[in-house]
């Protein structure tokens, strides 16, 4: 039976003293000692940074294919939509175009930002002249060159360049080869991280470029079980424990209809919002609010009080 309590009346039942400052100090000291002690035993994750240089050195063919894809406008970032461009409407929730309405706040044109502009900064005549030729061509011509070269690269495993025997690739092979040289030297990392700020603090462009990689970046994540379909949000690199408290967010990405939905992020966040609302409204649901009476765990905690009542 549910007891009705008038909240305006002062509590007249038993009380016990509780020193919250003392409890807080003990908690901070114990957790601090535990964290310091465990770090001595286990150290902490310290993976080397993934850079455009490491990508170009490890998998140059994937780098060349992705750079060509940026020029052809076929990569993920080229078709992402807001906040980078207007190429797509992005995730929606019914009639709500959430991503689109947020607007293009960080404009990124992948071909221009990741390839053309860095090449124009290179101290190399071939690189700069190829980039100038690209800029002088019509969008239709640019697309024909890049698409033809992407197709040709895709047909040869491990290729970083293809000879232009039919004169159909324009300046694209020189641009891609030059960008690969730039990336291997580490200069491309510097060029992209400082393109919008004087100090190398903005990693938006190199991260978008890396994420467009079809072979390198995804493989790295998958080997460390960090992919979305591997409960990756919960996991950490190496054998360290990760963010296990995110299990419920991760769960939805493993099951249908979320797993195969292109709109999974919006669906999962909406569902989690509804579940959180249900948790907050726990006391007003007729049956659910009686669960503590059916499973009286609180009686275990306050067993002395309930024993006295009996």
């Amino acid at each position, binding site marked *: 039976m549910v007891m009705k309590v008038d909240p305006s009346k002062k509590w007249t039942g*038993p*009380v*016990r*003293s509780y020193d919250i400052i003392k409890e807080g100090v003990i908690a901070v000291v114990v957790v601090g000692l535990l964290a310091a002690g465990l770090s*001595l*035993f*286990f*150290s902490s*994750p*310290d993976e*080397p940074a993934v850079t455009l240089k490491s990508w170009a050195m490890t998998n140059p063919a994937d780098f060349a294919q992705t750079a060509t894809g940026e020029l052809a406008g076929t990569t993920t970032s080229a078709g992402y939509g807001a906040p980078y461009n207007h190429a797509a409407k992005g995730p929606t929730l019914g009639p709500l175009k959430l991503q689109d309405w947020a607007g293009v706040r960080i404009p990124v044109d992948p071909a221009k930002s990741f390839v053309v502009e860095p090449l124009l900064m290179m101290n190399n005549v071939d690189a700069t002249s190829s980039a100038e030729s690209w800029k002088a061509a019509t969008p239709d011509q640019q697309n024909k060159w890049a698409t033809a070269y992407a197709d040709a690269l895709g047909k040869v495993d491990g290729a970083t360049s293809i000879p232009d025997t039919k004169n159909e690739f324009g300046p694209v092979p020189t641009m891609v080869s030059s960008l690969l040289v730039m990336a291997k030297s580490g200069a491309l990392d510097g060029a992209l991280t400082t393109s919008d700020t004087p100090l190398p603090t903005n990693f938006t462009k190199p991260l978008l470029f890396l994420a467009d990689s079809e072979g390198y970046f995804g493989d790295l994540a998958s*080997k*460390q*079980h960090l992919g979305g379909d*591997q*409960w990756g949000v*919960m*996991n*950490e690199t*190496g*054998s*360290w*424990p*990760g963010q*296990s408290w995110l299990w419920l967010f991760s769960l939805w990405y*493993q*099951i249908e209809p979320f797993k195969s939905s292109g709109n999974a992020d919006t669906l999962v966040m909406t569902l989690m919002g509804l579940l959180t609302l249900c948790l907050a409204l726990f006391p007003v649901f007729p049956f659910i609010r009686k669960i503590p009476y059916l499973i009286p*765990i609180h009686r*275990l*905690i306050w*067993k*002395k009080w309930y024993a006295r009542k009996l």
Partner: protein
Amino acid sequence: MHAALQMALINLNHPAHYLGIGPFQVSVGNLIVILSMFVILALAIFIPFPDGKDN
């Protein structure tokens, strides 16, 4: 980095072990932390409060 890891008594800088059934998958590290939390919850429930403060 490597020197610091070598100094740690237990080196966790190697591929993790994973346990799974169907779509469910969890790393051994996460499982240990989750089980530890259940143990702490059980202790918090069953260990009695210090006596002598009730009024």
